[in-house]
C-alpha cells in the first residue's frame, strides 16, 4: 500500500473582518496548516446562505467551515448571532440527511487568532479525513438518479419561488 491517504477538500467561508484577517495573521506569523482547505471571503458570516454550503457539498467538498467574529464582536454588531442560528438549523438538517456532524463546522476566530484558526482547520481536516470521502455528487451519479434528482430539485425550487397571486 503506497501512500494513499485520503485528502479531503474543505471549503471555508470567512468573514472579511475577523476570520479572513485571522487567516492573514496565520500567514504573516507563518503558522503552518494543511492545504486541504480552500477559503472564500464574505463580508460577514451572516452572508452565508445555507445554499452556499449545500452547493459546496454538492460540488464535491468533504467538509464546510463557516468562520466569523466571536459573538459580541461582530463588525456588523450582531449578524454572527444570525449565522449561529442558521448554522444549527442547517446542521440539524444535514444530520437528518445522514451527514456526519464533523463535516460542517462553525468556528469563531478574531483577527488576533491566527493560531486558533490554523489549529481549528487542522483539526477539522483530520476529523474529515477520518470520516472518508463524502462524494455526495458521485453517489448520486453512481446510482443513476442524478437527472431525476436535479429535475426534482429544480421543480421544488420553482414551486417555492412561485408567488401566489
Amino acid at each position, binding site marked *: 500500500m503506497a501512500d494513499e491517504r485520503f485528502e479531503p477538500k474543505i471549503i471555508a467561508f470567512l468573514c472579511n473582518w475577523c476570520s479572513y484577517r485571522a487567516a492573514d495573521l496565520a*500567514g504573516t506569523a507563518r503558522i503552518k496548516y494543511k492545504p486541504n482547505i480552500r477559503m472564500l471571503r464574505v463580508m460577514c458570516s451572516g452572508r452565508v446562505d445555507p*445554499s452556499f454550503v449545500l452547493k459546496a457539498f454538492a460540488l464535491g467538498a468533504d467538509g464546510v467551515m463557516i468562520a466569523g467574529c466571536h459573538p459580541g464582536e461582530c463588525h456588523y454588531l450582531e449578524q454572527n448571532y444570525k449565522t449561529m442560528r442558521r448554522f444549527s438549523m442547517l446542521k440539524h438538517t444535514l444530520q437528518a440527511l445522514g451527514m456526519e456532524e464533523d463535516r460542517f463546522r462553525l468556528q469563531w476566530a478574531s483577527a488576533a487568532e491566527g493560531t486558533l484558526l*490554523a489549529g481549528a482547520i487542522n483539526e477539522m481536516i483530520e476529523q474529515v479525513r477520518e470520516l472518508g470521502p463524502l462524494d455526495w455528487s458521485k453517489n448520486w451519479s453512481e446510482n443513476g438518479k442524478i437527472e431525476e434528482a436535479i429535475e426534482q430539485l429544480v421543480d421544488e425550487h420553482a414551486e417555492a419561488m412561485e408567488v401566489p397571486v
Partner: protein
Amino acid sequence: MAERVGVYICHCGSNIAGKVDVEEVSHWAGEELDNVVVSRDYKFMCSSLGQELIEDDIKNEGLTRIVVGACSPHLHEKTFRRACSNAGLNPYLCQMASLREQVSWVTEDEALATAKSKAMISGAVERVQLHEELEPTEVPVNPHSLVVGGGIAGIQTTLELANSGNPVFLVEREPSIGGHMAQFDKTFPTLDCSACILAPNMSDVSNHPNITLLSYSEVEEVTGFVGNFHVRIRKNARHVIEEDCTGCGICIEKCPKSVIDDVFEAGIGYRKAIYRPFPQAVPKYPVIDTETCIYFEKGTCKACEKFCPTNAIDFEQKDTFIDIDVGNIILATGYDTFDSRKIPQYGYGRLANVFTSLEFERLCNAAGPTDGKIVLRDGVTTPKSVAIIHCVGSRDTRFNAHCSAVCCMSALKFGHLVIEKTGAEVHSFYTDMRPAFKDYEEFYNRLQEEGMHFTRGRVAEVTDVALQPGEEGKLIIQVEDTLIGRQRRVPVDMVILMTALEPKPDAREVGLTFGISCSMAGWFTERHPKLDPVATMTDGIFIAGACQGPKDIPASVSQGAAAAARVLGMISKGAVEIEPIVATIHEERCSGCRICNTLCPFNAIDYMEDKMVSVINQALCKGCGTCVAACPAQAISGAHFSNEQIFAEIEGLLFDVVQGNGGKPVVEEPEAVPA
C-alpha cells in the same frame, strides 16, 4: 460575449515563489482555464512596473477582467483596483487570490502549495467573470470631529484639530480632563514636572474657540457612517450651573463632608462631596457627588448653596442629552491599572506599607495628600529602605501576558525620587529591564550610578514575618536572585508594586458603541499593527494612546497627533468614497414578508406600506449581506457578493473535484436570479 480574463501571479520576491511554482500556475491558468487570454507571472506585481503590466494588457489585449494572485486583498486590493481604473477598467472587475497569506506562508509541501494555488486562481477566475461594474458613492465629510477621552492623547488630538481651524468636541467621563498624566509628579526620563507641562495644554483646551469641552459626559449612542456620524452624548448632572459658576471654590471649602478620593488621589487622599479632582482642573466647575453629598443622603445641609456667591448650585439638575453631528471620531479612552489584591502574596491591602505605583505617584506629588513627602502609611515616618517590585500583573499569564511597557522606566523614576527626597536605599526587583527608546537606557545608567540596587528575579512573597535578626518590624522581600541563583530575603520599610496597565473594564462595550473591535486582552484593534496603527476597521473611527495598548506619554502624544493628521486628511479632501458593496431589494420579487426588516442592525431596511414591499436605504446599508442570505424569495441581491459570484467561486475552488466528475458541476443551478 465571453469575458477576456487576465491572470497575474506575483512572486512577491521569494515569499510566494519560494513555495509555489508560480510559472507553472500561470502557465496552467493560461492553458486550462476558460476565457483566460493573458496569464503572466512577475517578481513584484504591486510595483509600478507590475501595475503597468496590467494596465498595458488591459489596453492592448482588451482585457475585461483581472485576477491577481498575490498577497491578501486587505493589503493590495486597492492597488490593483487603481491599476484597473488607470487603464479605464472599472476597478470592481478585479479579484485577488491570497496566494501568500493563504498558501505559500502556511503550507509545508511545495507540490501541494502549487495545487492549492491553482484552485484559488480557478475560483477567482470563475468569480471575476460574473463581477459587475460598481461605482463608489461619494459622501461629504463633516469637518466637525469628536474626541473621546481627555487624557494626554485625547488632548493632543483635540488641540491639533482645533489649531488647524476645525471644530472639535472633546468628551471626558471624569469631571476634569488631564487623565493619568495629571496624577503624576514627574515624567521620565527628563524629570519634568508632569503638571507643569500638561496644564498649559489643558488650559488651551478650555480657552480654544474651536473646542467644545463636554466633561463629566459620556457617549450614549453612535449612528451614521464615515463623514456623517450622529452622536448622542449624555451630560451627567453636575448640580452646578456652568454658566453661573466662577470656579471660586468657596463651595468646596464650605462642604462639611470629606470622602476618600479613590480616583484622582488613588485612595490615599480625601476630597469633598462637592469637588474638583485637582486645583488646575479643566473645566474649573466643581461637581457634586450625589452618592456622598449629605443633602442627597439626608435632605439637609446645602452648605454649598448657601455660600455660593453666584447661586450656581442646582440640586435639581438632571442629566441632559446633546446630539451632535461629526465627520470623524477619535477614541483616546486610556487604560486602567491592575488590581494588586489579585496577588495576595504581595500583601497589598493587608500590609499597610505596600503601595501601588499610582498611590506612590500621588505620594511624591507636591500637590498630593502629603505635599510630596514620601512617608509610610502612618503619614509621618520616612522610609529608610524601599523595594520596587516590577511586573505586578504584567508578563504573567495568570493575569496579563503583555509587558506594560512603562513600568521599568516608572520604577527608575521612583527610585530617583526616593533617593533624592529621602536618601533611602532603593531595591528594584525586575524580570528584565526594558528601558527602550530615546534617553531611557541613559536614565537606567544614571540610576545605577545613583546607587539604586537591581536584583533580577520575580518576588515570591512580601511578608512581615521576621525570621532573622534585623527583619523585625520590616517588610521582607523573599526572592530568588536569578543572576546568582540564590534565595534572598531583603528587609525594607516600604514596598511599591509596579502595577500592570490594563484595558478599561468597559472597553468592549465602548468598542461596540463605536463599532470597533478589541483584541483578546481588550485593547482596541488597529487597522494594521505596523502600517496603520491609529485607524480602525471602521472608517472614520480612529484610536490613539493607551486604549490601543500600553504606551508612555511620548508615544501617546505621537499617536494623538497621528490620529489628528488622519482626520485632517479626510477633512481637507472634503469627501469620502463609500464602497458600493450594499444590498438591493428587487421590488418585483419582494413579497413584503418583512423577514429582512428585523435582521438589519443598522435599520437600513424600511417597509413601504403603500407598495407592500421593503426597500433598503443604501446610505445606511453596511453590506454585511445577512438580509441577502435570509430572503426566502431571493429578492435581495448583494453587490460584489452575489449568489452567482459565490457559487462560481466555490465551483472554481473545487475545479479538480468537479473535473473528476466529468468536468461539469453535477447540480445545475436553477435559473439565476437577475441581479
